[in-house]
């Protein structure tokens, strides 16, 4: 009882499933071509049943299975994506959260912070991140245990991903090498130093040190230093690093021993200047840098700044009742000297090609340095921003600096990043280094003070 199908046009016999009549070429209506399995002879698709056992649908299904992912071969870290570099980029504008901001701070990290006398690469931040994993919660980027808190060279500087061939496996970003991009983060102050867009190396340096809780005096006091290597001098990157490290270490040491912040600052600048002078091969080939430090007293809220050169300290605040933004330093630069002498207006002076020429610096060739020290006790909340000219070139006026990143005191790390991001967007012509110290000094970490 084989059903005979015929073409409605030419009455030629057609086969089940045919799209058109092979006789006249007419497209067949659905009811004619629809392939209902016939009782005998033909299987699905018109393949004779005898053949279909061999090569029909059964084998086809296994053919179909080729190329599919093998089970267990891969995993999708779904549902647990973190903020990507895009967000990092956004965050420069919005001040939104990024990975490290969202992390709770744990005691181990506090200890690391307290000991930090040099910039801590983000690697270490990632290792801190390991320690804050709630027990039992498995993060998609959980690292194998047993790596301890050692900086992990395979951790991405931008996201929780791993690094292969210098690129992150997750976000794809090329990893910074050495000092190209450095982040230092403590429970109170944080800083970011970046190579910028035009320079071949980062000659800026920063150091942040906290006076430990167990110290005799000044527990929690923040000691921060930013140095900008003089690019016309040799090994200026080394100069800035050794100067910043020595400065911050001496500051914290003196304050912990009960020195007045002003006295400590003078001592720190002397020792830092000696340290940088000591690395010179000869006075004619002397590594040199600027210096700006801040000692923010956790108890009194006083801010003592010391400086040589044109790196700056600003007081920034945009909170009602707090002191207005102010520049706490005065550049040792040709432009500033011209202004002070009344020879030029500030605008005229800054337009000069000599504007940034230093009239004082730290280095073996600097002679006797005239260390400036100044102390204020601002009414907060607000923040002290230490920065190299890579930032302040774009936000010279204190009001501009404060307006660029609102509520810098609320999240110092985010603020430091925002400042660096803004400087990069503005052209990034120089190395950019920013340290943000909130006032009053936050003792429980950046998240402890409600915004």
């Amino acid at each position: 009882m084989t059903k005979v199908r015929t073409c409605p046009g030419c009455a030629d016999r057609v086969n089940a499933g045919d799209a058109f009549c092979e006789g006249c070429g007419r497209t067949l209506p659905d009811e004619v071509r629809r392939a209902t399995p016939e009782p005998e002879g033909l299987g699905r698709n018109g393949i004779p049943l005898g053949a279909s056992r061999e090569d029909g649908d059964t084998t086809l299904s296994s053919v179909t299975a080729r190329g599919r992912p093998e089970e267990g071969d891969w995993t999708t870290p779904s549902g647990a994506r973190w903020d990507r570099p895009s967000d990092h980029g956004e965050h420069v504008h919005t001040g939104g959260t990024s990975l490290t901001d969202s992390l709770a701070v744990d005691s181990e990290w506090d200890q690391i912070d307290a000991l930090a006398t040099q910039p801590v690469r983000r690697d270490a931040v990632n290792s801190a991140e390991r320690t804050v994993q709630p027990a039992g919660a498995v993060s998609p980027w959980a690292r194998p245990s047993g790596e301890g808190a050692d900086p992990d060279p395979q951790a991405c500087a931008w996201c929780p991903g791993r690094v292969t061939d210098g690129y992150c496996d997750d976000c794809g970003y090329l990893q910074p090498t050495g000092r190209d991009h450095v982040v230092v983060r403590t429970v109170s102050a944080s800083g970011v130093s970046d190579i910028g867009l035009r320079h071949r190396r980062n000659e800026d340096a920063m150091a942040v040190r906290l006076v430990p809780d167990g110290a005799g005096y000044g527990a929690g006091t923040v000691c921060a230093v930013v140095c900008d290597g003089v690019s016309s001098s040799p090994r200026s990157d080394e100069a800035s690093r050794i100067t910043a490290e020595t400065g911050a270490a001496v500051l914290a040491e003196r304050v912990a021993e009960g020195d007045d912040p002003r006295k400590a600052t003078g001592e720190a600048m002397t020792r830092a200047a000696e340290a940088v002078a000591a690395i010179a091969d000869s006075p004619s080939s002397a590594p040199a840098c600027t210096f700006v430090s801040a000692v923010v007293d956790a108890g009194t809220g006083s801010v003592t700044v010391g400086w040589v050169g044109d790196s700056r300290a600003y007081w920034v605040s945009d909170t009602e009742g707090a002191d207005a933004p102010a520049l706490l330093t005065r550049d040792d630069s040709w432009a500033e000297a011209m202004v002070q002498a009344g020879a030029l207006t500030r605008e005229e002076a800054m337009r000069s090609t000599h504007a940034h020429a230093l009239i004082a610096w730290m280095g073996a060739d600097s002679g006797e340095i005239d260390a400036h020290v100044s102390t204020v006790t601002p009414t907060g909340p607000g923040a002290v921003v230490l920065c190299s000219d890579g930032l302040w070139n774009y936000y010279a006026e204190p009001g501009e600096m404060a307006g660029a990143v609102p509520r810098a005191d609320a999240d110092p790390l985010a603020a430091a990043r925002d400042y660096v991001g803004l400087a990069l967007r503005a052209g990034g012509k120089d190395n950019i280094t920013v340290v943000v110290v909130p006032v009053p000094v936050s003792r429980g970490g950046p998240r402890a003070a409600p915004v």
Partner: protein
Amino acid sequence: MPHPSESAPGPAFRVEIDQNPHLPLGAREVHAVVGVTSETPVAAGDAVRANQVVVVDTSGSMYGQKINAAKRAARAAVETLRDGVRFAVVAGHREAQMIYPSRPALVEVDDRTRAEAYEAIGRLRADGGTRMGAWLKRAASLFEGADGPRHTILLTDGQNNESRAEFTETLESLAGTFVCDCRGVGTDWRVEDLRLIDEALLGGGPGLIADPDDLVEDFRAMARTSMGKSVADVALRLWTPQNAVVRYVKQVAPTVQELTARAVERVPQAGDYPTGSWGAESRDYHVCVEVPPGDPGRQMRAGWVRVVLPGGDGAEDRVLASGNILAEWTADEERSTGIDPRVAHYTGQAELAEAIQEGLAARRDGDEDTATTRLGRAVALAHESGDEETTRLLSRVVDVVDAGTGTVRLRSQVDKVDEMTLDTNSTRTVRTRARREPPGPDGTP
């Protein structure tokens, strides 16, 4: 059965990336041309691991000169196969009928099987319909479990008599499982049918054989090329950063082939695009990835291209070559506005193929305005890229008034062969001049 040992010289591949990594601030789209070159030595003797199925359309329309030419061509193809290759000959009508061997399996080429195959081919009769999907399913089942390159030659002269839905479904299920080169003889077949097969089964572009007598040489050449393929199932693995989107992956040389939808995620954050079997040859791919914009000066690996030989049975995948597609954001417009010449060239070639296909389709549908516009655009693109062959084929379908601006008039009388040849060849691209030498060992420029 010899197993490839660690010390055995493996397939040698090279990846070269051409692109301008500099993006304007805020830009997301990264383009690159990925050149993949295989310098694989041709296998011989015991190392032969190739599988060949020849499918000859024996529908009623093949009757006469065509079936006789097809028999000679199939014979020539079998003749060209090296000893040790596993093969089968299938007659395609309303079902796929085993011609040689008679049981549904592949047999090894030797003097006896060759002679038996010639004899079986000689008995082919033209009768029945055209069911390409069924023929291909048969080929797929014959290849089941086969080791090494799997290649099918499919010859037809008529339109596929399967509904588009059924045909597409079949092709989807078979996509990438073996390589199929299609030939249409005469002018009664539909270019689109063969193009669909070619795309799904990674062929070298469908071919039109106007004169049945040319089939023999063509089949011999295809079989010879197929014998040159020694590495099967090569995949192009494209890793992209999180939150990135692969806009497209297209083979752009030697033919244009859309691969975007063929990606299979076998490792996290990466898609494997099947590329079939490789001999000593070179292919180019145009990759477009959308990434989250980065800060100025930051450099990102927007794509990590690896040529991978997937390991079966839980074995490790073998990465044969790799290269980086980079992105770097800059405010410097001079750097960010330049388009890489190779990317520009293939963008033009892909558009050319599209313009030809759309123009011819519009012409068939009687939409003369669209046909004139699209074919005019094709003339301009072909002219611009110095693609003389395509220019010549286009001039048989349109009268070119001004090649530079793409001003054309449709011809009222067009030879069907010319139209079909233009359509069929539209996906073949011309290459730009040879790359700069020499690439790094890992393929990075």
